[in-house]
């Protein structure tokens, strides 16, 4: 679908991949609503892009519903939804430090998997009421972010990998559920990208991972992620698929 003039709801839109996509979409004429727990940061970027900012937790059912209503009233009901909100922890299943905290596991699943599902279900419900945009009957597109970690399973990433594999697993049934309404669902699995989420990673680990990236031998940039999101919005044949954008990295057992 043509994106100019449409509204996008971007969770985690204040920074990282979400912000990268917001910049690319905004440059293509999309009105961006940035939903983030960090409202100050979201406001800064929204002001720069001429969009709006909303402070909301993605797992908050009534909160997200109210946020979608607010976006619909101010910018129009979003036809583009990007679920970029996500958190990570690095804890091993068991070891000298004890068993993996169940609370930490649940927290990651709640934000990454349940939060993504929550926003998708409520945004899709709002989209269904919209008239189709084109002769295909297209109403909108939902782009979810998984991770190469979902498939490659590096050490200490059991919670993150499980949550992102859940996002991967939702892609096809969600695409099939929403196909009768002309709504597509596509998942992106980024490799290593320059984001605040990655900023917590120790430099020694970063130095050790660069040699394992085939090409280009660097971390991805949020604008490159954003370019793929734009392609997904614009290419109607992309549906029910997860796309790795990772410079061909596969994480082996040596990534300890």
């Amino acid at each position: 679908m043509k994106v100019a003039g449409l509204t996008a709801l971007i969770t985690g839109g204040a920074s990282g991949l979400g912000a990268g996509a917001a910049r690319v979409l905004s440059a293509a004429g999309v009105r961006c609503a940035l939903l983030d727990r960090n409202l100050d940061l979201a406001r800064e970027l929204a002001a720069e892009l001429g969009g709006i900012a909303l402070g909301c937790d993605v797992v908050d059912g009534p909160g997200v519903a109210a946020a979608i209503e607010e976006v619909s009233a101010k910018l129009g009901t979003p036809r583009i939804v990007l679920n970029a909100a996500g958190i990570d922890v690095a804890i091993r299943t068991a070891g000298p430090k004890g068993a993996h905290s169940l609370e930490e596991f649940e927290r990651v699943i709640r934000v990454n998997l349940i939060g993504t599902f929550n926003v998708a279900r409520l945004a899709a419900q709002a989209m269904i009421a919209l008239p189709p945009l084109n002769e295909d009957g297209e109403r909108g597109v939902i782009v979810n972010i998984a991770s190469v970690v979902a498939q490659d399973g590096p050490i200490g990433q059991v919670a993150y990998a499980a949550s992102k594999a859940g996002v991967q697993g939702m892609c096809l049934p969600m695409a099939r559920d929403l196909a009768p309404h002309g709504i597509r669902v596509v998942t992106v699995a980024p490799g290593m990208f320059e984001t605040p989420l990655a900023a917590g990673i120790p430099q020694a680990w970063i130095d050790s991972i660069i040699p394992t990236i085939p090409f280009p031998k660097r971390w991805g940039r949020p604008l490159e992620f954003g370019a793929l999101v734009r392609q997904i919005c614009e290419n109607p044949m992309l549906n029910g698929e997860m796309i790795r954008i990772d410079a061909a990295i596969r994480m082996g057992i040596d990534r300890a």
Partner: protein
Amino acid sequence: MEINNHIAIVTGGASGLGAATVRMLAEKGARVAVLDINENLARQIADEIGGIAVPVDVANDSSVAAALATVRSRLGIARIVVNAAGTGIGRKITSSKGPHPLESFKRVVDINLTGTFDVCRLAATDMLGLTPVTADGERGVFVNVASIFGFDGPVGNTAYAASKAGVIGMTLPMARDLAPYGIRVVTICPGVFDTPLARAETGDAGFQRILDLVPFPKRAGKPSEFAQMACHIVENSMMNGEVIRLDAAMRMGLMI
């Protein structure tokens, strides 16, 4: 990598997915060599876009070498190579007509798999001598065309599915082989597209029946949508070693 001013080779460029890619690459400023077994059709497209037509039988090694030599001398060394040449046959491994002929199996594998490999190995060797065009050290990119048949395996398609699964399987090792030289490899798996090959395979009635199984959009893909994906892959340097289904969420069950 940018497309503008670079030299591109598209095999099977005279019709279907290849022809649409030829047109879009030319629109974006590439100088395109249309390689096809149908020289007359290739010339028509080449004339239309101001490129060159080069006859090739991708199943014939000396023909491939000669075609690449022609491109080298007339345009220069290509940095963009799209392998869209392909063929198919519909035949069960055994039936009342007898066993699947071995010759036709070999023919499909020769064209779709070995032909793709042959073009890649020779074109990549030429690329090694080029200077990089980006700060990443990027020299070029291969976009190979597989098929969702390579994953989904519909009945009566052992040869086609085997050949396309081979193209899928080559993607990662080829990307890893060529990463040190700044050359990327990405594969697209089209679903049902409106091409002469698809129409010939299924007949008009069969084509319609297959479209009933497509979730959304409920139609055959347009070759220009394939071209859009191919061009995005060329332009997005983080895309490497990945196989992308472009299929409107279609998965082929036992019924076709």
